[in-house]
């Protein structure tokens, strides 16, 4: 029997009441679905997906705002691949590209700076999206552009911060959680300390987990013990080979030099204080939002789409009537089905299709 199977059986034997833990990382969502752990623990441990997919948590009005950059004369809109197919209220970046807009997928923000250098007559607008793992790359790219005097490079900062979203969920009281599986790679930046508030302020156990089945199970094993009183409530670091207690202070400093926390809108969670990253005055010249202002009307609600409730952990994807019928990977209606890391896409791909 494999280590993972042994540990899984050990967890199943010690659960004495139904427990509910939330993961807030799209990569965890996919890993938990792909490995089958979610289904194997069902009935005892409910592993519920939260607001962990950057594309999914981006509000419709912000998607529309990003689409508007396609209308800037001479613009090259550079973005991570996840965003290209996400539908706004008037098409997607993919549709705009098909209609002639210059939309390029880049691997890193630095590649967008290179694009700007190679195309001095064009305006390169990078769509900065992601959590604490991705924001340092954008900040470094902006610093590099500033040092090198690259003046045709701009960034739209839709970056978001994980802890404020967890606080918002707990404050709203709807999630009924017994603990959090903390995001492994975000934790390489924030460290164990970045999630200490879960235990100290909310009395909830938290475990930083990696992405292999054993990593996930080791984190869940601690959460079960702590939730049942067999371990102290704290932040357990079950991903020590990559996550240091202090995280990566230099990465946080780079973020802090370029950006300052700002209120931000999240799909499903609304406006969350200090949960986004806005440009500091020193780097304001790189802010695409001020350089290319556009009036974006409030988009109409997506009829029938329940991505908001999925992101709050209130429903599982199969409980949405559109799941697997009107909304599927080939014809996604909501962002949680578009992104490969969305809960709807993960449930659909790995056959977790029955309502539970």
């Amino acid at each position, binding site marked *: *029997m494999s*280590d993972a199977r*042994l*540990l899984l059986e*050990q967890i199943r034997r010690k659960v004495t009441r139904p427990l509910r833990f939330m993961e807030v*990382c*799209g*990569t965890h969502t996919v890993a938990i679905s792909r490995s089958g752990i979610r289904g194997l623990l069902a009935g005892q441990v409910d592993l519920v997906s939260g607001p*962990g*997919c*950057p*594309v999914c948590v981006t509000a419709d009005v912000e998607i529309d705002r990003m689409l508007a950059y396609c209308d800037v004369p001479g613009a090259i809109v550079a973005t*991570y691949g*996840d965003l290209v197919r996400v539908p706004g209220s008037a098409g997607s970046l993919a549709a705009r590209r098909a209609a002639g807009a210059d939309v390029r997928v880049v*691997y*890193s*923000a*630095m*590649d967008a700076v290179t694009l700007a250098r190679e195309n001095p007559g064009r305006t390169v607008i990078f769509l900065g*999206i*992601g*959590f604490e*793992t*991705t924001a*340092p*790359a954008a900040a*470094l790219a902006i610093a590099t552009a500033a040092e090198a005097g690259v003046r045709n490079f701009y960034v739209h900062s839709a970056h978001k911060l994980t802890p404020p979203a967890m606080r918002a969920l707990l404050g709203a009281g709807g999630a009924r959680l017994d603990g959090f599986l903390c*995001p492994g*790679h*975000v934790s*390489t*930046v924030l460290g164990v300390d970045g999630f200490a508030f879960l235990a100290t302020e909310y009395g909830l156990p938290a475990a930083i987990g990696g992405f292999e089945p*054993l990593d996930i199970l*080791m984190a869940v*094993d601690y959460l079960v013990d702590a939730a049942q009183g067999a371990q102290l409530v704290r932040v357990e670091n079950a991903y*020590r*080979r*990559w*996550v*240091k207690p202090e995280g*990566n202070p*230099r*990465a946080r400093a*780079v973020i802090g030099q370029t950006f300052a926390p700002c209120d931000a809108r999240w799909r499903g969670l609304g406006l969350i204080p200090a949960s986004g990253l806005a440009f500091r005055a020193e780097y304001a010249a790189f802010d695409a939002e001020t350089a290319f202002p556009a009036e974006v009307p409030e988009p109409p609600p997506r009829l029938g789409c329940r991505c908001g409730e999925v992101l709050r952990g209130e429903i599982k994807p199969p409980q949405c009537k559109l799941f697997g019928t009107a909304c599927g990977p080939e014809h996604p209606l909501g962002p949680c089905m578009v*992104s490969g*890391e969305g809960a709807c896409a993960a449930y659909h791909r790995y056959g977790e299709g029955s309502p539970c």
Partner: protein
Amino acid sequence: MCLAIPARVVSLDGRIALVEIQGNRRNVDVTLVDGVRAGQYVLVHAGIALQVLDEAEAAETLSLLTAALGGGHE
């Protein structure tokens, strides 16, 4: 999207490291990590190295796990 990938450092040139990721070689920025050496593993996300692998902790995790499972390998 927060997927970060372990990569082995092949060589270093200032703040840029040539790394091997699943058989492919590419340059990554190592500005944010200290003391990287060739042969080490770094965690790469969006072209940036975010951490250096702690090999002692990796070994420790495995031994803890073995102990927790009562050495129950088959």
